[in-house]
């Protein structure tokens, strides 16, 4: 295969995934420039390893694995630390004590949340949970694909996903109840003011 053929072939198979790679990158940074740099670096590394790509590997998973390494390398440079992961069980009090923690109200509360707020909640998760939740729930990858990208066993994907979703649910319930408390207090203050008048 000539260089031009190889280049053409590479661009044909990677081009359809560029936007999705960028989407994943954008969830992990606040600047477009950084996301674009990560995508570019991912494609350059993919080109270097292009000869090693075998037929059995899905292109998108392969590219995501490289992107994951690119981001990890970049963050290592920033000396960003992994947060200590909290353990939240299904018996955690926050999952019981608030009105919106029951399944129905929780679902209603989620529908009312802005996408930006939900993205921010995922971004606030400890790194090991954030990656799994993002790849599975937002990118829609299978457990086997997530396991391949992150180099962790399938069972670990499952446990991290269970715990990550639980931490998210707890955080969203807490933030929502704080908001509703504030708005109740505000309403009370308005009513009190109206009474004084």
């Amino acid at each position, binding site marked *: 295969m000539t*260089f031009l053929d190889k280049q053409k072939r590479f661009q044909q198979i990677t081009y359809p995934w560029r936007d999705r790679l960028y989407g994943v990158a954008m969830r992990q940074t606040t600047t477009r420039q950084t996301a674009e740099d990560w995508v570019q670096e991912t494609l350059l590394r993919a080109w270097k390893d292009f000869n090693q790509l075998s037929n059995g590997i899905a292109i998108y998973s392969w590219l995501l694995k490289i992107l994951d390494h690119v981001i990890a390398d970049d963050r290592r440079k920033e000396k960003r630390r992994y947060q200590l992961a909290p353990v939240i069980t299904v018996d955690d009090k926050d999952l019981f004590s608030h009105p919106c923690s029951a399944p129905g109200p929780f679902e209603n509360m989620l529908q009312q949340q802005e996408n930006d707020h939900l993205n921010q909640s995922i971004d606030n998760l400890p790194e090991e949970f954030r990656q799994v939740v993002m790849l599975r729930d937002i990118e829609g990858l299978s457990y086997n694909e997530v396991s391949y990208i992150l180099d962790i066993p399938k069972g670990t994907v499952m446990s991290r996903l*269970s715990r990550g979703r639980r931490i998210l649910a707890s955080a969203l319930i807490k933030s929502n109840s704080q908001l509703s408390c504030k708005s109740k207090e505000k309403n009370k203050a308005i009513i009190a003011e109206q009474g004084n008048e």
Partner: protein
Amino acid sequence: MNNPTDIKTENMNTDKWIELHETLQDLLAGYIDAELEDEQIMLVEAHLIGCEACRNDLARQQALSQRFESIPSSRMTSSSHQMLDKALDEALLKNECAPKKPLLNWLSSPLHFIKKITPKFNLATMLSASGWSVALLLTIIIFAPQFNSGNTSSIPMIQDALKEYDEMQGKALPVNNMNNNKKSKPPLSWSNTQLLSSWETNIAGSPAQVYAIRSGHNIIFQYQVEESVFFRNPVVRQAIVEKGNYIIHNKKTDVLAIPLSKSGVIVVGATNSLPKPENIIF
């Protein structure tokens, strides 16, 4: 009053239940996403019947997963795509133009070729073998590729088409009356072409029709093959799915494979003589 044995058994059951309750919490995501084994599903379902906390957790996880699916992804702007194209082109070219080690390449390529065709080959085997016959065989293996026409493919239908194309270069095209011939129209056409001859042949063990066409100063062959032959090879299938056609470039020829509604066409011609797929009329 409870019997002490009953109390002990009850405590043991409670401990086991708590242990199971803690373990199964890590499987709840897998239950929602249908990633559990049958045995695990049975365990989780049996536990869910008696555990409201896990049922609620399951419902919340399901709601979260569904809500996250609906979040749209950011897309690159067209100017970002263009900048990325430019940066990649420059970087890829720079990478390709990096100085190579010609002597090493020259030495490694025949060995690589031998290894490719004889997977069990190793240097020790070669050194232990003796006699002129071995030396002669190796010489043929190493230098034979330099004498072929350069038209190769591992896909049988392409191999057959290339073989016939090569053979016909030294022969006269069959003469037939195009006006009366039912095969007087080639399956693909593009500007400035004229059908010269058509005949039946055999491609990958099945009958096929060949059309020799004049396209400017070039003679191009179109092989119309059966659908089952055309889609037999996975590499071709994948290429068709990804970009609608399959193209290979040999040293002297280019090959383009295009699917039709109930058949497929393999177009063979000299390098750079084939039309671009977008200029072809079906």
